[in-house]
């Protein structure tokens, strides 16, 4: 929340002039008839996508020159909001003159960018970005009809966020590389989930096959599994450094040194010590201990003895260990 969130403006105020003009006066609306396709010596393609019951439906017409696969004419009909109509109009325009294979590469991001007045100012508010997705889908539908292939064959990767066209593989990779812990961080890094928000979790505007919350949970579970496996393997081969250890391994390593080099000295004087907690305070590792027996209350516990314990642990385990008696 911030000042700009306190008075919610009309979403219409955030439409670009291009969106406004195309909504008011779409240039490519209409249909291509069989007669017109014959005149052009072209193949007529009519593709439908969406449904009125879902709030958006579009019909795309192509007249395609079968000799060159070029789209000679492109028109649309659209049931939808202003953004959907404007997106459909620009989508139809972007198809003209392209081959079918080139048209398939047009994404909703291209459509939205073509609707911008200024290169760096979005054409629509974030939640309306999904209206441009239908344009991308209907092109694939038209291309699949023309080529006689399945629509899915144009999808090279599984897209999680259709508004920002972010793939599952990208999201997983970004989580791993940057050790992301929240959906907000995923959005910051990739823009996934920044627009209509349907891909964040169930219950949004559209149902999805997979959601960011699940991808995050699954990826982090796998990362943890990998970390544990790496730690176990390194431990087995004796190559494990303190920073790569699990909490249990750290306690074990510390206890081993304490048992071998420190506790015997303390016990001789009727004392002892126990580990209470280890906290990462990078670059340091803070080891909280409690003195037992004669060590408890001994003045040396915060001076000489403490220095000796800390020095041994730094020397034998990790130079960043700090010992803090409580």
């Amino acid at each position, binding site marked *: 929340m911030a000042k700009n969130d306190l008075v*919610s403006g009309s*979403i*219409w105020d955030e439409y670009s002039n291009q969106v406004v003009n195309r*909504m*008011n006066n*779409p240039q490519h*609306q209409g*249909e291509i008839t069989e007669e017109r396709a014959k005149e052009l010596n072209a193949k007529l393609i009519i593709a*439908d996508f969406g*449904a*009125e*019951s*879902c*709030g*958006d*439906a*579009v*019909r795309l017409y192509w007249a395609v020159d079968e000799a060159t696969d070029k789209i000679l004419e492109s028109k*649309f*009909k*659209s*049931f*939808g*909001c*202003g*953004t*959907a*109509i404007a997106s459909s109009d620009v989508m139809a325009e972007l198809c003209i003159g392209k081959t079918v294979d080139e048209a398939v590469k047009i994404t909703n991001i291209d459509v939205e960018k073509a609707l911008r007045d200024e290169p760096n100012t979005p054409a629509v508010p974030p*939640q*309306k970005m*999904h*209206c441009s997705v239908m344009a991308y889908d209907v092109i694939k539908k038209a291309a699949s009809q023309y080529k006689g292939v399945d629509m899915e064959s144009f999808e090279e990767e599984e897209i999680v966020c259709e508004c920002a066209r972010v793939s599952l593989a990208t999201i997983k990779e970004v989580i791993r590389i940057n050790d992301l812990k929240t959906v907000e961080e995923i959005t910051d890094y990739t823009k996934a989930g920044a627009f*209509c*928000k*349907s891909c964040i979790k169930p219950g*949004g*505007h559209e149902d999805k096959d997979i959601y960011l919350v699940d991808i995050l949970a699954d990826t982090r579970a796998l990362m943890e599994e990998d970390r544990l496996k790496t730690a176990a393997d390194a431990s087995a081969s004796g190559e494990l450094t303190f920073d790569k250890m699990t909490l249990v391994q750290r306690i074990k390593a510390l206890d081993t040194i304490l048992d071998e080099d420190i506790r015997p000295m303390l016990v001789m004087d009727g004392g002892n010590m126990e580990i209470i907690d280890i906290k990462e305070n990078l670059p340091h590792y803070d080891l909280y201990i409690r003195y037992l027996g004669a060590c408890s209350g001994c003045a040396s516990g915060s001076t000489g003895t403490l220095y000796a314990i800390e020095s041994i642990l730094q020397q034998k385990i990790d130079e960043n260990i700090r010992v803090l008696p409580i």
Partner: protein
Amino acid sequence: MEVYLDNNATTVVDPVVYEEMKPFFCEKYGNPNSLHRFGAGTHPKMMEALDYLYSGINADDEDDIIVTANATESNNTVIKGIWVDKILNGDKNHIITSEVEHPAITATCKFLESQGVSVTYLPVNEEGVLEASSVKEYLRDDTALVSIMWANNETGKIFPIEEIGQICKEAGVLFHSDATQAIGKIKVDVQKANVDFISFSAHKFHGPKGVGGLYVRKGIKLTPLLHGGEQMGGKRAGTVDVASMVGMGFAMHLATNEMALAYENNHVKKLRDKLESAILELPETVVIGGVENRTPNTTLISIRGVEGESMLWDLNQKGIGASTGSACASEDLEANPVMNAFGSDSELAHTGVRFSLSRFNTEEQIDYAIEAIVGAVKRLRNLSSSYAYAPESHKSGL
């Protein structure tokens, strides 16, 4: 021409109401709780406002009408007050409401659910009306409150408040009604209806924004939502906005007297019917919920093949303000729950446009609006992928 047909969202402040309010900004600006003449000088008009409020809903002098900031606050006060008084002490743990209430009710109930309270959201029938029998069916021994709106904001449908009130009275369960969309449109009589609480907002009946009311039947203990000073008899803390209270009182007086209600149910209804009939002449249009038993100013019409937001867009270009429950027109892309409640036809959720009139609309405005609506439907249906291929017999050029 500009034509405002979104009066269920808010209304223009009646200029006469505005005149009544004016002195309380720069002349009679004292704090009503002060002892001196500046404070006490506000009291006569405040009392007059209360007189108007009490007579407007036929409240007994022993009842309370607490001046709040809006109906949302009033709704929150009732629901959270009952939670504190009847539920947290372990007596009860159940609230009944409907699926089509305003978010001020549903979101508050959802919050209580997160606190362990059991809430039943009753569905409406195919006409968008909650049947009193369903309230009876879902009443439980541990029901603390029934909260059902008096009239629906989207459809204008009037709910059987008297019947529900009787059922609640017999069962010994407290009954609240959000009367925000009813006051000034139909007679709201708290005695006749057996309600224990009603909420209302001044800006829905040509009063100012930022002021509302909560009626509480005498003898009912209700923990305040706002604690602080002793204003409103200790039932709602905070310095009273005298200008707004005076405005609300006078607006209530203007909206609820016999002549005003007669005007609403004759003149306004005639204009609404004229607008509605003209739209229904277009093929494949339907009044959502049907035409029976509605507030006289409201019509919610589905226009097949025309998405609600694009319809509003075109009307806005012509200077006309209306409303839609379509998901595409909302900040969060959530369709209005009232539209979803008509589950039999999911297409309605995207094609419903609400026109809500007031006494300030003129016949000339309605004629202009009809022309603009017909033009917009023609253009958008011509654009529409879903309508362009409807059977020829349905289209008649539209």
